[in-house]
């Protein structure tokens, strides 16, 4: 599903060069639930951003669904992300000025769909994460766990094949974290969605199919 070959990422400033990822090669199969662990600053989020086409590698190739993405234009990248990928972030990244339903509808705004269709799909996604009763709330009226569930609903509303989750339980207490993890596990099991999750939590990582570890930008396990 996802193939990374010799991925290298260098951050350059006028003064220094930082090698964030060094020669990363990784294959992730369709329907796999992979967790990525490692100490802070080891390049986990950078790797996730590169897999999510949110950032470009300095060197190396990425293939998603047998498609090379390095020649994609900005518009093609945007469309690809919209169709194939869903994102869940540690800090939720909800738009505070939009109600829950409108937040979930967001990915559908960038494809051709009617208002009614968007509403229907967003409501279904919210039902899936158990938040049907919060559609008219603003994010500021929700708890951290609820916010993350909204973010998951937003990630799955467009039925992507891949979900990239960057420390989805990082800001939550263990009970809330377990709830979110259960939702992700269920998505993986029922919809065969490929999930790549960055986490610091060994327990959460143990629930996934495979665990890879990063250290100083190098894949060590």
């Amino acid at each position: 599903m996802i193939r990374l070959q010799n991925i290298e990422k260098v951050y350059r400033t006028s003064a220094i060069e930082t090698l964030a990822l060094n020669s990363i090669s990784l294959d992730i199969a369709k329907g796999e639930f992979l967790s990525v662990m490692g100490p802070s600053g080891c390049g986990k989020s950078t790797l996730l951003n590169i897999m999510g086409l949110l950032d470009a590698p300095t060197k190396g190739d990425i293939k998603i669904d047998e498609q090379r993405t390095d020649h994609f234009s900005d518009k093609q990248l945007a469309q690809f992300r919209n169709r194939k990928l869903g994102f869940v972030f540690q800090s939720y990244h909800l738009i505070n000025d939009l109600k829950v339903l409108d937040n979930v509808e967001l990915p559908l705004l960038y494809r051709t769909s009617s208002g009614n269709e968007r509403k229907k799909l967003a409501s279904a996604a919210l039902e899936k994460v158990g938040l049907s009763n919060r559609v008219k709330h603003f994010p500021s009226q929700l708890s951290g766990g609820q916010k993350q569930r909204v973010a998951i609903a937003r990630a799955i509303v467009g039925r992507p094949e891949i979900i990239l989750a960057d420390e989805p339980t990082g800001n939550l207490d263990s009970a809330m974290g377990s709830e979110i993890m259960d939702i992700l596990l269920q998505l993986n099991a029922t919809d065969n969605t490929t999930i790549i999750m960055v986490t610091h939590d060994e327990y959460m990582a143990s629930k996934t199919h495979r665990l890879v570890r990063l250290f100083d930008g190098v894949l060590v396990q």
Partner: protein
Amino acid sequence: MLTHLFKLIWNKKKQNFLLMTEMFVSFIILFAVFTALVYYYQNYHRPMGFEYDRVWKFGYNAPREISDPDSMAAFRGSVRQLIRSMPQIEEVSFSSENIPFGNDNNVGGVNYYKKNVGADKYTVDDSYSAVLHVSVKEGRWFSKEDDAAKEKPVVINETLKKSLFGNENAIGKLIGEGGEGMGNMKIVGVINDLKDKGDFAGPHNGLYRRVDTGNYGGGAILLKVSSDADRAFESRLFKVLSSTMRNPDINIQHLAYMRTRINNIRLIPVIITLIVAGFLIINVALGLFGVLWYNISKRKSEIGLRRAVGASGHSISGQLVGEALVLSTISLIVGSFFALQFPLLNIFDLPALTYLIAQGLAIAFIYLLVMICAFYPGRQAAAIYPAVALHED
């Protein structure tokens, strides 16, 4: 997407209120400035209605020792003959002081039965139309046949005709000098409007009465001179007339110069308004630019998220420009409501078309300003890499 933008703007109405107020105030000021400019432009392109080139004004006070009307008439006759005898003089006309481009005004009421209007009143003689090449639209100009007329003959301009009679025929009708009832002035002719208050002045009611040469007093003599009338001739003319008038209070001015002077006087307030409006527009542009720029830095996380879920750089810049345009549209709808009251309530008595053109120009200007101010921040937002934007939250 438009519904989404409206939702976003509505949910941020408090933050957007100030910006919309700024746009609204700018629109109203621009509307006022454009109204003045359009009005001036329309007036500038109206036909002049007369020729002022090579027309000189000789201002005078008649000699005090002449007291009876017959002597005054004889004196004026001899002055006319004296001037007319000079080869450089083509035509001579006695007139009241309120000649074209002058500072003097004589405004009073004119009525047709119960209909009363204000009008500029001019006292002129039979050769006035020949000096200024005034074209008569209906009827005729004053002539010798008016000497024995029972009613006072008057000529009116087109605007006064429309004010009093609409599309009816005016010739032969009796009008008065204000008040009610039938007047004793008989309309013998209708002339084109004369732009005698400068190129930028609007049309006004004009009533032309025939001069009584026996009346004591001063006034103006309009002289149509030939093309070879130079400074030396002007000096000679001045000397001849000053000795004839036996009065030091005389002057000669060229109508072309007077026109330039009155135009400048009319332009000064417009130029001042334009400068003030220019500063205001710069202020609004900077404000708008600043707010949109601030929006980008404040909404970097949102921009990153939108990029992550499928927005291209183009659609991000489109969204930011679109939001600014929706905000300006709301402000313009409110502003247009107020602007439309001007033609509907006939405020300042300007033509409705002037207000409508000014409104259109003000709307176009605000949209242009908003697009220019939103374009660069929009482009900057489009260039933000999603990973960077998301990381900064």
